[in-house]
């Protein structure tokens, strides 16, 4: 195990979100409301990385991510990798992917869109570009760039 990972103790059970785009870790904590979940969370920022120079890492104890949370994570940092830890060992490694249709996680910025005006309706966005993230509301057609995405 590398020296860097030893800065924070290994966790026994839970999830390690690795290879997060540097600087995005805090935003991920906030959007996934992880800090309010009652479990122990560690955030490492600007950790040297072979793959991408620098990265952020989040360790969440005793908890795995739901589908919605994984989808939000993919939108915030598509480079991230999820490692499920059981009894100090990596039990499962997951690459994450931005789905072609993003459902129920992003809010449409168009106030006049039906998705903001109909009780009980959900939001759906089409993925237009994933390198420079761009998505489009399937209802009103509004296109949103990465920095303008608001999560539900």
């Amino acid at each position, binding site marked *: 195990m590398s020296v860097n990972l030893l800065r924070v103790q290994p966790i026994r059970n839970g999830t390690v979100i690795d290879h997060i785009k540097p600087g995005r870790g805090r935003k991920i904590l906030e959007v996934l409301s992880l800090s309010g979940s009652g479990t122990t969370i560690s955030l490492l920022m600007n950790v040297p990385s072979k793959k991408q120079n620098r990265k952020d890492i989040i360790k969440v104890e005793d908890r795995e991510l739901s589908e919605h949370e994984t989808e939000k994570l993919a939108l915030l940092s598509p480079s991230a990798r999820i490692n499920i830890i059981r009894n100090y060992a990596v039990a499962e490694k997951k690459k994450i992917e931005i789905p072609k249709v993003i459902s129920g996680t992003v809010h449409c910025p168009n106030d006049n869109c*039906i998705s903001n005006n*109909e009780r*009980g*309706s959900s939001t759906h966005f089409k993925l237009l570009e994933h390198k420079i993230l761009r998505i489009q509301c*399937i*209802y009103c*057609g509004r296109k949103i760039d990465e920095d303008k995405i608001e999560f539900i």
Partner: protein
Amino acid sequence: MKHVVSIEDLDNKRIMGLLKRAKQLVPVAEGKKKSKALDGKILANCFFEPSTRTRLSFESAIQRLGGTCIGFADSSATSHLKGETLQDAIRMVAGYSDVIVLRHPHEGSAKLASEVSEVPVINGGDGAGQHPTQTLLDLFTIKEEIGKLEGLNVGMLGDLRYGRTVHSLSQALDRFRTKFYFISPKSLRMPTHVTDELQNDWSTHENLDKILGKLDVLYVTRIQKERFPDIEDYKKVAGAYRINAEILQKAKSKMRILHPLPRVDEISTEIDETEHAAYFRQAFNGVPVRMALLEQLMGKKK
């Protein structure tokens, strides 16, 4: 099932087929020929905001084809005010009819309706969004007036920023090698989300004078007072973009003026009797074009 939510739902082949059929249906739309093609079919007009032209032309279209019509003209008389969702209203109306025409103040409502409807939904205008039958009748009018759609010089004048008809029409005409001339005050220019998608040449202008002679079609839209905080600014702008007989001396004799109507005073009434004025024929064209679409959605397969 085929819903018609956006002009993008229709490929060129289907558009050309509809325009061809619309032309054949003109005598039926005029009442000179009878048709029973949609005998027994019921069209439901669901207008959550008023739009007289769209509603009446759909009513005329279904009745000229032997069908009948139910519906409401604005949301004040519906359970919408009691808090009923659009989805519930559409499920209910779909049980009473064979096709639904939806007019709604919110963008994307026709798409949402199409997800729950058991019968085809036609978008009759959703907020600042799409109004595909308006685009179809604009295309039909240009084709009938000029004789073709391919390779024309088309000017669009007036409020290009908020006018959804010019946005959808630009998208649609872009498939036919159109050269676009966008003429408007600076504050009401064609938005970049429209121009970014255009494959063909386009240019923006503040004056009609210099380019008028090149145009085959001039599509005029109304500049709305509400867009200007200062009434004096509005008067100046509106005055500068008014079309009269004197200005039109520079136009090709075959140049045609279209306007989605209602007009206020952006086109002087002295133009009405000239060959250039196509806007009243354009308003009539809404009937045969909508007939062709209804026939395609509900008629017997040939």
